[in-house]
């Protein structure tokens, strides 16, 4: 088994390789039968039997390799192609040149199609096509002419190689999809099972610790706070994330992990889809704003992160109920470093094509209100790409 292939894929491909082996064996018997009927044509009976014996040995070797999981790959198929072409060119040793250029039978006949199918199975349509052209080219070189028969052989080889390769690719892709779907299904079932267990046990205890802790004094209150944070972390872990797709992510599920006992994430039930880079950037902006709340809003301040879907745009608010800033002192606050992140947040949001409003009042906390179109306006993609590459 190679490192890149899943067991499911190897299992799915096995029948194809078995078919190649059966074809090889059958073609060998056909070659022997054809030789027996035409045995008078060959100048040297012993030389022809010798070549047939070499072909039979290679048939057995390649069959053994193809039936082992480690041998079902392009390397084995290419070696098979080389050996087959060598045996095909050995025909000149058993048939005189002039005869070959007329209608004399070629000993190897249909047997030479084996590596074409193997290449198709290993590399798909293009592998099948390349193998067919190599074998067909060798046949033409052997006859030293391009007649109806040669073109017919070439066409047959190309059709079977390409068809077989296409089928192999489809089987591989289907096996991969099935594997991914099964893995997702198993993960979902397992998550459900864990969620049930956690809900019935751990969460109830954590909630009880939060309720009873504060009554036991400062140590109890500390335990309660710890339990609260862990409860929220567990719940976020258990909550099901909608599958992201086509470069879009759900802003709400990206923001949920920011929740703590003091920070609430408020959002609608339905996912809020935005381009994934925009979501990453907004999460970074929210984290910056929340870090600022932690530093400057004062002890005991709480914060709310509010996501609203406004149709063609979204609104994202980060509000705290902390100390706030007196009217007219905003500039000084910026200078004092109490709003050191202001410039950074403004810059980031403007780069995304959004707007920021900052409202604050002494004793009434601070609120960042971000409005962002769902589709970034033209020209903002470049700024975003630049920022992300830094």
């Amino acid at each position, binding site marked *: 088994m190679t490192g890149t292939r899943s067991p499911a894929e190897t299992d799915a491909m096995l029948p194809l390789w078995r078919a190649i082996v059966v074809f090889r064996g059958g073609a060998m018997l056909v070659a022997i039968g054809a030789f027996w009927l035409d045995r008078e044509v060959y100048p040297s009976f012993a030389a022809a039997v010798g070549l047939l014996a070499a072909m039979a040995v290679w048939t057995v070797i390649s069959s053994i390799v193809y039936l082992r999981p480690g041998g079902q790959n392009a390397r084995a198929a290419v070696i098979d192609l080389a050996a087959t072409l060598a045996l095909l060119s050995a025909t000149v040793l058993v048939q005189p040149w002039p005869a070959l250029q007329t209608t004399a039978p070629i000993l190897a006949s249909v047997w030479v199609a084996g590596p074409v199918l193997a290449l198709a199975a290993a590399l798909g349509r293009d592998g099948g096509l390349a193998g067919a052209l190599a074998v067909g080219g060798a046949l033409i070189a052997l006859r030293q002419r391009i007649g109806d028969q040669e073109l017919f052989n070439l066409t047959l080889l190309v059709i079977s190689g390409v068809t077989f390769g296409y089928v192999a690719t489809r089987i591989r892709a289907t096996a991969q999809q099935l594997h991914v779907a099964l893995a997702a299904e198993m993960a979902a079932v397992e998550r459900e099972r864990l969620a049930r267990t956690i809900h*019935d046990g751990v969460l109830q205890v954590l*909630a009880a610790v939060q*309720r009873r802790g504060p009554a036991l004094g400062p140590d109890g209150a500390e335990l309660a706070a710890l339990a609260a944070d862990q409860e929220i972390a567990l719940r976020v872990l258990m909550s099901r994330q909608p599958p992201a797709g086509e470069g879009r992510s759900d802003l709400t599920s990206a923001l949920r992990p920011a929740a703590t006992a003091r920070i*609430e994430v*408020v*959002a609608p039930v*339905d996912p809020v889809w935005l381009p994934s880079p925009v979501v990453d950037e907004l999460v970074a902006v929210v984290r910056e704003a929340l870090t600022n709340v932690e530093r400057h809003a004062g002890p005991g301040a709480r914060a709310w992160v509010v996501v*609203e879907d406004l149709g063609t745009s979204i609104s994202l608010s980060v509000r705290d109920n902390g100390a706030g800033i007196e009217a007219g002192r905003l500039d000084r606050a910026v200078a004092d470093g109490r709003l050191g992140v202001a410039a950074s947040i403004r810059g980031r949001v403007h780069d995304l094509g959004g707007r920021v409003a900052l409202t604050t009042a002494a004793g009434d906390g601070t609120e960042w209100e971000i409005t962002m179109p769902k589709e970034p306006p033209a020209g903002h993609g470049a700024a975003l790409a630049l920022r992300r590459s830094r």
Partner: protein
Amino acid sequence: MTRVMVVDDHPMWREGVARDLGDRGYDVVATAGDAAAAARIAATMQPDVVVMDLQLGSSSGVDATREVVARSPRTRVLVLSASAEQPDVLDAVKAGASGYLVKSASLDELDDAVRRTADGDAVFSAGLAGLLLGEYRRLRDAPEPDAPVLSDRETEVLRLVARGLSARQIATRLTLSHRTVENHVQNTLRKLQLHNRVELTRYAVEQGLTADEPAE
């Protein structure tokens, strides 16, 4: 004395809440661990407030809420649940619950919430306001006949609740009376519940008519 019933599938939690509320002077008349028992006992005991968990083992607190509200119209349901069960919270509120509190809330907050629920107020968290805003926007975009709409004032109030402002802070900010703010909040809930009842009835009628048609 306010008569309270506690519904939760977890015995430790159920008894804990019942004892805490008893200590705060409430008359805890019953407890139940699943939806069927909750509806049956509530119909018999007619409590003023049912404190309802939403995950009741194999049964659902949303169904229990709908049953309790249908069979005991005088009883109010306060959902006491967890933040991760958000679609459930919205469903419970649409089914007739008049408030929602997270389980991690302190005893003081629970006490306050039960008292306000008994008084007929809507107990709102920021999270529930966010869910309602989302639901009204969904209804507005969906081609549904008679979908309820929020007035500009109600939207404004709801958005401030979602941002964590208390009714008193909102009243100050919008220069309204505290009572007016409470009324706005309650209206947003009532409209949605009424719409949900109408939808359920319409659905039942449609199902009934379909069932009466002769089978071919």
